[in-house]
């Protein structure tokens, strides 16, 4: 039996179905992220675990105990908010000790625990500061300590880093993960930032429009996206329309060229599918093979697909160089990523180029799940 179990959860606000068919079983000590765009129901689901919202249907159990109808102040669940929500009238120590005082712990115990937690969040000796005297990152660490003070069964964090600067965000992200590992506390982390989810999580729940798209480890989510939504939302992705030539042999037609895939194909010849290619999986060479711009990390696997194209433009993203190419008569855009290095001979815009990728890199997305290809493309373009 899982430690945190959500079964058949549904939440409606009037006519709006905020969350539907939500099932999740998290193990004790697991770090689970809810990842998805704004408005997909992450916060609502988290608030149902905390008890701030009642599910319209379904049940929630923590450590084998049904808490679906339990009041939030009876659940012993720790919550960290995007806005920190520290009590402005209390100093850091009183904020952290608030939950313990309610539990009527002796003062000496409270003081000891507060000191412990201040050390854990690297704010030793700052107990008498007030929230407004702290930076955003420090405030959020205090909020984390306050939630941890009560030794909650489950720790819930709702976009806790969204209000912080990029540098602090990354530093605090590591700190949260380290503390979570150290305490072994079951954690649900809500974010719309795929980088955060990929780095922190044991498992990620990718959500869209109130439904679960996929649950899996970061590795699974990134490398084996179950739906085109997941493929487009997590990481950058090239999504392209293709038609089946021979389903059993894995042969497809893309932009007038025949390519092969190792993914299973369902459908007769001539039926349409969407294929997905990660930009870092594509090799880029000049037509005569003299200039190798990008190498596919999957090279050496069962042969390669080749697509002639044209360089459209080039973007330096720091450690990565992103080349936008177009293929075929309809000039379908395809992004190619390669690591930056000083010897890189970047091709000029307009020059012809050849894209190469192994059949294993060519994912075929289930059309039946989320058929909207333009969404995926828009998402890919927005990331450039």
């Amino acid at each position, binding site marked *: 039996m899982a430690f945190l179990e959500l079964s058949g959860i549904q939440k409606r606000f009037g006519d709006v179905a905020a969350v539907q068919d939500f099932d999740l079983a998290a193990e004790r000590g697991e770090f689970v992220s809810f990842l998805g765009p704004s408005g997909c129901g992450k916060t609502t689901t988290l608030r149902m675990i*905390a*008890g701030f919202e009642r599910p319209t249907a379904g049940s929630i159990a923590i450590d084998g105990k049904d808490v679906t109808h339990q009041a939030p*102040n*009876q659940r012993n669940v720790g919550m960290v*908010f995007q806005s920190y*929500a520290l009590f402005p*009238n209390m100093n850091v120590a009183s904020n952290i000790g*608030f939950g313990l005082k309610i539990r009527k712990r002796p003062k000496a115990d409270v003081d000891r625990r507060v000191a412990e937690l201040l050390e854990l969040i690297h704010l030793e000796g700052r107990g008498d500061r007030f929230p407004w005297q702290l930076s955003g990152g420090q405030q959020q660490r205090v909020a984390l300590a306050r939630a941890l003070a009560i030794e909650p069964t489950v720790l819930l964090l709702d976009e806790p880093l969204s209000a912080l600067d990029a540098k602090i965000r990354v530093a605090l992200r590591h700190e949260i993960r380290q503390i979570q590992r150290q305490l072994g506390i079951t954690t649900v982390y809500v974010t719309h930032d795929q980088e955060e989810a990929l780095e922190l999580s044991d498992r990620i729940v990718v959500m869209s429009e109130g439904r679960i798209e996929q649950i899996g480890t970061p590795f699974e989510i990134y490398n084996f996206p179950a739906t085109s939504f997941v493929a487009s939302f997590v990481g950058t992705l090239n999504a392209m329309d293709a038609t089946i030539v021979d389903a059993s042999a894995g042969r497809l037609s893309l932009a007038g060229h025949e390519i092969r895939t190792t993914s299973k194909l369902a459908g007769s010849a001539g039926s349409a599918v969407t294929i997905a290619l990660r930009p870092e999986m594509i090799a880029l060479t000049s037509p005569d093979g003299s200039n190798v711009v990008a190498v596919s990390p999957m090279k050496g696997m069962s042969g390669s697909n080749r697509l002639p194209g044209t360089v459209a433009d080039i973007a330096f993203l720091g450690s990565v160089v992103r080349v936008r190419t177009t293929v075929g008569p309809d000039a379908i855009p395809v992004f190619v990523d390669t690591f930056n290095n000083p010897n890189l001979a970047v091709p000029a815009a307009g020059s012809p180029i050849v894209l190469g990728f192994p059949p294993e890199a060519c994912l075929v997305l289930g059309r039946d799940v989320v058929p909207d290809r333009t969404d995926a493309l828009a998402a890919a373009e927005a990331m450039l």
Partner: protein
Amino acid sequence: MTGSGTNRLGQGIEAMQGESLDPPVQRERKSPLRFAWWAIFILGITYFFLPLIGTFAFSLRAVPPSSAYTAILEDPKFFASLGYSFVVGFITIIISISLLVPTAFWVRLRLPRARPYVEFVTLLPFVIPPIVLVFGLISTFSRPPLPFTHTDIGSTALLVFGYVVLSFPYMYRAIDTGLRAMDIQSLTEAAQSLGSGWLRILIQVILPNLRVALLSGAFLTLAIVVGEFTIATFLARKVFSVYLSQLGDIAPYQQSAVALVSFGLTWIAMGFIALLGRGSRSRVTITGAR
């Protein structure tokens, strides 16, 4: 710090440029505005202080000039009525706060759509004259099953109820503004997740952060209560304003003196309330602004 420094530097440069390019125009443009500003300021000062000065001058016409003031000290009714008004004022403030803080809190948290209606109800004292209010109170509470007016305490209670209603517009607005300055939903939920019940949330989380708002509401309420005449008269309460008006018939100089002294005492009482709320002020303001 750095920001204001840069700004000052910027202004300095601007000022230097303005002066070297076209100093007369700048002076011309500024001086009429400055004159108007001073004129309005002096007009305002005169409007507020002339009556006080006039009252003071009038109170000195007694023979000997200070007798109006010494008479106050010898008049037990002065202290009794002013004390009574202050006590009624403080009780009114406490009841008003304990009614309106939970109401405004709950409306903001759970019934945001009811806000306009609640706001309208709290504004009713502006629409319904006190005379109507007091006759309503008397006709309802002067016979069984609720014979409030039959006893002294009952009448005082009615007076307080009336004043609580009069305080609604000021108190509710002040509290609502105070609540808007903080993220009550997150604060409430944070407290709940830590195990707190509603009463503790109100007393330990919401109230302390409303101090400044409650102070301004309390100021206005006290000022209204000390000056209110109609309701007190019809309930036959010996409040300060009633005493003051009666004094006018028998001792006009003393009445002026009493008016001035009570003015000062009311300010002292407000200062006392402000003192109670000091310390939290800067904290609340800064956090609220973020």
